[in-house]
């Protein structure tokens, strides 16, 4: 153990150094430590932060709701083609964010399917790929497979006898859902929800492909760093993003 301790120290250093440097960089600009404050008060930065938070929260809630319903359904019902359906639901797992972005464009972009259909039906072209709706659709599409697998694993481990016990005590199916199923899935929902939130906060590929500009935080960081060469702000934004995500993940445990 004595031999291992220095190894751990060296390793931690390598591990923590970039993070420390990042934190230091955030305070290295002209405004010094106030860069962090400015990131939270400056209108453009703050609104990007809020938008990212709202988007991620909404994506997480939507994903959890869809995943609980379809996950329970897939685990509980045994029907022909069940495993095929599971395979289909989890297909987007195979595509990285960039490709998901492409798909959203195909669905809701200028030459997208939804646009074509809406033109045919109402004579109005619906285009949503390049605004927050597109991001929302892309993120949900990206998140559902990951969350649904966790929910299904948890749903398979639910103790059916608990539900039968609740029913024997007079609980109706909605009560069983509220009192037994949801509490049983809760740990899985919290942990996969937190990961879904963290992923959405940091999703870059989709946002970039959809050309989301500075509307979400990772894009903003990239823009500040590469195009504006405003390294201090980029670092400060990174630290804030990291802190929020870390807090959510830590709370989930």
């Amino acid at each position: 153990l004595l031999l291992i301790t220095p190894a751990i120290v060296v390793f931690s250093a390598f591990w923590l150094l970039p993070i420390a440097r990042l934190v230091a960089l955030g305070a290295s600009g002209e405004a010094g430590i106030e860069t962090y404050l400015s990131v939270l008060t400056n209108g453009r930065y703050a609104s990007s932060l809020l938008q990212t938070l709202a988007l991620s929260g909404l994506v997480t809630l939507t994903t959890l709701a869809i995943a609980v319903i379809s996950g329970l359904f897939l685990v509980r019902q045994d029907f022909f083609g069940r495993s095929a359906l599971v395979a289909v639901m989890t297909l987007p797992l195979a595509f990285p964010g960039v490709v998901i972005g492409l798909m959203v464009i195909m669905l809701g972009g200028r030459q997208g399917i939804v646009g074509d259909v809406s033109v045919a039906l109402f004579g109005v072209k619906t285009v949503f790929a390049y605004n927050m709706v597109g991001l929302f659709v892309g993120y949900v599409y990206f998140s559902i497979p990951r969350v649904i697998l966790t929910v299904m694993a948890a749903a398979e481990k639910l103790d059916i006898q608990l539900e039968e016990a609740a029913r024997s005590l007079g609980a109706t199916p909605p009560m069983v859902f509220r009192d037994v199923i949801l509490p049983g899935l809760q740990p899985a929902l919290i942990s996969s929800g937190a990961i879904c939130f963290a992923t959405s906060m940091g999703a870059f590929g989709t946002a970039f492909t959809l050309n989301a500009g500075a509307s979400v935080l990772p894009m903003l960081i990239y823009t500040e760093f590469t195009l504006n060469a405003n390294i201090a702000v980029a670092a400060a934004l990174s630290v804030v993003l990291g802190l929020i995500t870390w807090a959510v993940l830590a709370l989930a445990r």
Partner: protein
Amino acid sequence: MIRKMDSSPIRLRNCSKTYGDGTIAVGPVDIEIAAGETVVILGPSGCGKTTTLRMMAGLEMPDPGGHVLFGADDVTRLPIEKRNVGMVFQSYALFPNLDVLENIAYGLRVRGIGLAERSARAREMMGMMRLEPFAERRIDQLSGGQKQRVALARALAIQPRALLLDEALTALDAKLRDTLRTEIDVLLRRLGITTVYVTHDQEEAMSLGDRIIVMDRGKIVQIGSPREIYHRPGCRFVAEFVGTMNRLPGEVRDGQFVTKSGRIPCRHLDPDCREVMFRPESVTIADPAECDLTGRVAATFFLGDRTRLVVDGIGDQPVIVESESAGEFVVDQIVHLKVRSAAVHAF
């Protein structure tokens, strides 16, 4: 503070259960259980005993033509949540997100009974089950025996028409099971509640049931009091499943059953009988003069209050003998056995 409960007689009429894949879990069975009676359904795993209990509970629907009656009410189409039965599961099935008091009060809560009244009634149940010190405990802080008592209190709190227990004591260790069995038995008799208890453990069935229903491969093979089941098994399956049975091949000659190592005087046997069965305690160690069978001790097991001898050289399989612990036997000793002829069975 123990009041008699209003409880229903239970009747299954022509109830069978076939699963989607064609497996017949339970062939058509008819069962009548009187109000306040304790009945044990006994059988090996896969014999359909749990399915039968679940049909009573409303967790399984019998095949068309079958009827489940609680007193005069036909409850066949009623789901479990409308039947007002108390159930106790092998895994206890306590709600891990609720504490002991909340678990016991849950059935009252879903009935819309206010917090004050349901707490009072739950505390009354806890008093009866000696659970007061644990009211605020989390479920995972309880021992197995305490969990079992909470499960029972929860099932009784709703004042059910019948109490259904599915292998409720199997998960506990031997000594605790014994204690709880006594406790539950005394309680149920005082409450006077109709109780159906499913188990694969014949010792448990013997000690709990007013009547025992023995099932095998989806069919009822015998119904009777513990004494009847033990002393007058109705068929070979029951004889072998309940208690220990020795088997001895041979043939009937001159009113005696002749085996390779001796003869047992038995007047009541069918002349075609090729095998007899008898229990370890129907055998006594005898003088060489008056013995029926002679063998050699292969192993001895001191059981505290008795000694079990495994005796070789009598039939194909060793004969098990149980005698009072007074005598001392050693391996390879020759012993002479006398079988009480009234206790010899043949099927």
